[in-house]
């Protein structure tokens, strides 16, 4: 017995020492026919941040690319995933894990916190879809295929005025940093467009969201905007539905971000999502007989390679899009260099940033234009499509492309 204990302890110590001293800050490898390691960071499993579908879609895209597209120019794509749990500590730990694993590029799904400085120090670029925190917009080693709050809020303002014809808007905002950051961006844009608004601000979580909508509707608005995310999505959508059931004055369109159009939210709220409009598209992927080649590819690939099957809502599309767009940029570099195997992560990043090959974002077909906002150099795409929920899980495209550059440039 003692011998077993000793052996177990020895093995544990050896394992510890091996992992402890063996891991250093690995330098990025040059591209070649060897596997290309892509790190993926995402927030899952915490009460406020739980987006597994984002990661799953990335994984499905990688499997598809390896099976059907020869990986990246002959290099198999290897994913190293890590869960930040939506915390700074988790983000730091993930950064360390991915560096140890030899990631050459990191895809930031929806991790909330990204350790940009750490990745920059390791020479690993970060590619994402949704910049959230201030550092996301300004990190020199990051590129995002979305405009984050500045782009989205400006788009929403334009959409409200031009597509919904709103002259007065009721805004339901929140005191948490995401909402507090978004609100002035939205109101500035509305001021610029001459649209009046009334703001009602609630806390991180409300026992009853209906008073917020009542306050935002006083005086009566033509449309609502909700700046809530996470469980606030279900709360606000449910609350407005409750009001609509009992008072027709609330039966007007409501706009929010794509964060509230996820599969899980729509499943939770069901028909309460009626007449809610979302910045962000993915409408083509919802059509079984879509003619869009990217959407068609998405549907078939997800059916075959995604562990949850075909998922057309919420964060699955951005996840798939993120990997495929990055791959496209990598392939473009490889073709330009005429080499076999995947190029280096830095070369891919440089290609995205400068975009000599006119790479388009997968599915949305937006051209990459990093630096479109000089004070937010990591933003590479600003335009947003808009969709709205119709019924029975169906969405419709309500605006193909809203470009907020005139408001932000």
């Amino acid at each position: 017995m003692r011998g077993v204990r000793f052996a177990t302890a020895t093995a544990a110590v050896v394992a510890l020492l091996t992992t402890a001293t063996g891991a250093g800050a690995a330098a990025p490898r040059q591209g070649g026919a060897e596997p290309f390691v892509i790190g993926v960071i995402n927030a899952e499993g915490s009460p406020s941040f739980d987006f597994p579908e984002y990661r799953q879609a990335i994984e499905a895209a990688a499997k598809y690319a390896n099976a059907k597209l020869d990986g990246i120019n002959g290099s198999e794509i290897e994913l190293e995933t890590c869960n930040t749990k939506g915390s700074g500590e988790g983000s730091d730990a993930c950064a360390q894990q991915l560096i140890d694993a030899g990631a050459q590029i990191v895809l930031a799904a929806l991790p909330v916190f990204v350790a940009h400085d750490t990745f920059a120090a390791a020479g690993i670029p970060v590619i994402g879809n949704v910049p959230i925190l201030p550092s996301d917009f300004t990190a020199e080693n990051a590129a995002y295929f979305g405009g984050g709050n500045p782009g989205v809020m400006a788009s929403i303002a334009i959409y409200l005025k031009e597509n919904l014809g709103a002259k007065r808007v009721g805004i339901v905002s929140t005191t948490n940093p995401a909402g507090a950051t978004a609100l002035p961006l939205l109101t500035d844009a509305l001021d610029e467009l001459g649209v009046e608004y009334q703001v009602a601000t609630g806390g991180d979580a409300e026992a009853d969201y209906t008073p917020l909508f009542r306050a935002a509707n006083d005086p009566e608005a033509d449309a609502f905007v909700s700046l809530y995310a996470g469980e606030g999505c279900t709360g606000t959508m449910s609350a407005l539905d409750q009001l609509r059931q009992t008072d027709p004055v609330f039966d007007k369109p409501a706009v929010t971000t794509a964060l509230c159009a996820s599969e899980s939210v729509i499943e939770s709220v069901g028909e309460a999502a009626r007449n809610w409009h979302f910045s962000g598209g993915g409408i083509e992927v919802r059509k079984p007989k879509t003619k869009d080649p990217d959407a068609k590819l998405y549907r078939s690939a997800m059916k075959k390679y995604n562990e949850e099957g075909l998922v057309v809502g919420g964060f699955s599309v951005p996840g798939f899009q993120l990997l495929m767009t990055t791959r496209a940029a990598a392939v473009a570099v490889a073709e330009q260099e005429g080499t076999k195997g995947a190029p280096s992560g830095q070369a891919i990043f440089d290609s995205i940033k400068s975009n000599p090959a006119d790479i388009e974002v997968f599915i949305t077909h937006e051209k990459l234009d990093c630096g479109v906002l000089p004070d937010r150099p990591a933003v590479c795409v600003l335009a947003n499509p808009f969709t709205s929920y119709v019924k029975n899980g169906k969405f419709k495209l309500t605006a193909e492309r809203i470009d907020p550059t005139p408001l932000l440039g």
Partner: protein
Amino acid sequence: MRDYVLYALYGLGSGAVIGMLGLGIVVAHRGSGVINFAHGAIAMWAAYIYSELRGAGDYVLPVGRLHLGAPFGLAAALVIGVVSAALLGLLLHLLVFRPLRDAPALARVVASVGVLIVLQALVLLRFEDVNRIVPPILPREAWTLPGDFPVQSDRMLFAGVLVVVALALAALYRGTRFGVATRAAAESEKGATLLGYSADWLAGANWVVAGTVAGLGGILVAPITGVNPLNYTLFVVPAIGAALVGRFGSFLVTAAAGLGIGIVQAEFLQLQGDFPDFFRDYGVGLREAVPFAVIAIVIFLLGAGLPARGALHAGRLPFSPRPRPNLVTVGVPFALTTAALLVLGSGYRLALVNSLIGAVVCLSLVVLTGWVGQISLAQMSMAGVAGFALSRFTDDWGIPFPIAPILAAFLAALFGVFFGIPALRVRGVNLAIVTLALAVACQEFLFKNPKYTGALIEGAPVPNPKLFGIDLGLETPGELYRWQFGMLALVVLTLLAVGAANLRRGATGRRMLAVRSNERAAATAGINVAVTKLVAFGASAFIAGIAGALLAYQRGNLSDTQFGVFFSLAYLAFAYLGGISSVTGALVGGSLVGGGIFFYVVRQVFGGGDNFADLELLIGGLGLIVVAVLNPEGIAGAIRAAAGARRPRRDVPARPTEPAAPVEPARVVAPSVALEAAGGAEVSEDRTILETDGLSVSYGGLLAVDEVSLRVDAGRVVGLIGPNGAGKTTFVDAVTGLVPSRGRVELAGTRIDDLAPHQRARLGIARTYQSIELFDDLSVRENLLAAVERPTWRAMAADLVRPDRHAAAPGVEWAIELLDLGALSDAYPPALSQGQRKLVGVARALAAEPRVVLLDEPAAGLDTGESAELGERIRHLVDHGVSVLLVDHDMGLVLSVCDTVFVLDFGQVIAQGTPADVRSDELVVAAYLGERSGTRADAAVEP
């Protein structure tokens, strides 16, 4: 006006949610004295059970699930959900809170946090979709109330349900035997037990009722709030506020308060619309801080009038060992950690850094909670104040390192002192609640307001610390998780730990532990309890502020979420797990924090990954409960016990020490100097030392002490006797300042009746207690030292570096010698016999060389021989210039020792004179024998 009425109606829905949760909190507190921070989590669990039954027809268990067929109907699912919550309440009573009945309030707070974590973890592990909408249970229609007020029917009906439930609970607890017994046990468990009620059974039954109310509330609330793991937990704070307004007793007031909070918060929405600029610039978080305001106002208004449970056993905080920092105990861990920082990979380095900073936070809790017994749930708020301040100091004003973080920590210390003010009026769980409310206010008012913390779009940046050109930051371009920052954190932690250990060993630590043990006795021993508490809050906040600065340097960019309320709860839990009352415990607690070295190592060894991460929350919560229940001294205490570490002798030593040479007391210089400074004349033997004139004490309508005029002359022993309930101890309490009184009290000609107890003690009045009331956490010698040492800021600062410097304490040695306590001087009171404890109480009173000592029942529990010996010692006191007021039932002792005797009955002096006079006084006879005789001459009192 109409709008304000309208918004009041809109607020009823959320108010009913708060009120319903508040009712359950009141029930749990009434039944068991526990403020259940996990109450919302119980409601949440019931809501998920209900939702799953309605949706999938499955009954979800912590392990596994029962497939029961088709989705359930409303009524069946509701009943099952409520019954499940009731059973959960019973389970919590049996497994968690019953074992903690004798534990201090802190252990119960920690255990309820553990329960909260476990239930949240179970929801994440056991339910697929955690964010759910529940179809309406109550009819949802548009109603128009008189006055043309459009409302939703389900909100109004829910408010009505709240009132009905409150009335039902009020009827249950007023009109049934169970309810009356519960109320009795809440006042006095001992009394209820003596009447034949089982306090344990009552507590269990009340937990079932609390669970039922939680389940009902959680399910009915679900269609309004939605079901998710976060909401119900967050609503606990305002729910506690509502329960506090109801004084944890009145269901109707609690319900009304809950509705009121909801109404006020809704009215703020109207105000936001009317004053948008103000709210945008200054009103951020104002609405969310309403519950805080309610709690703070109630606390300050009611203060000591808040209900405290009359428990059978008052729990003590874990023993606080005397630390011994030396080259080995400090040097070896320092060297090992340094080696680890230099040798191990960057992942381990990061985990170590997280643990080092976590240990600093835990250390701040050791100082405040472990050593002074003050429960604060706002430590991370202190860290946040310093963190955000550091950002301003460095990024905006360019103040260099290390001045900036030290300044930031001092700012946190000021906040800490402010947060400590409520501690002067409330204690225990009530203090925990008000600090929780202050933490919420901090987060909502300060940390979310860009006016104070910096523009949100930029965040609150914190540049790397640099010293003499050397970058000490965690990361630089090209370098990750640098050992330099790790060393900075290690050096800071070491300095703070050694400083804290020294504080504990010195006079400051003795005062802190005295306050922790017994505030009343500390006050009458000359300790300024208020200042001691505020110093502890300030010191603790300073340490937490240092942690906040380190966190800020580590993160490089701050947001309010890093310093949220529930982080404070988590760190309290870590500190308790590690060992709340020792420096070592803080270090162990630091190793357990999220992202710290313990979990990192476990993951490396067991190859955790995401599967393990999912279980981390559950394991942490279970671990917390287990430690709270099984080992209140935490992991550090268990290690000490397992290692057979030599504790400071709590037992009476087997080998008696050599008695010290007799020490003649110095002439009573200090008190008389103080008295002269206060305007009192020097005392001659013919003068009166202590005099009361018309002293009265009232408790409500009862006059406990009625116009008592009494005199103790210098060099005399004066007796105060009377039957039980005559008011003798109350008189002593009034003279020493423990109870408010009317009338005059003079010490050597100087009025002292408007002075605080510690001030009276310092002027030369000392006392003992009928119930002894020693400082159980201090040795016998330390008990005496605590009564003698007088703090100055310089002395406190000196304690940080030289705690063992010797200050002359002749009074201590004299008292030990006089009462033959030499062999026991290193023992701790719990190990002493009753008689020995009595002697220590007397010694403590004498150690400060008082002018007059008030001995309250010193002979109780002594046999005849011991009593006679005590009488001789009392006479010796007089020989040494100490006058005595002796209160006792031992007539033989009193009449043989005293020069003069006063007799009290029903609060009045009924006789006074020599022992012989009193012995034969017929009024005295009648008072003791319960009858009045005809003349004085007919009566005689047996010696």
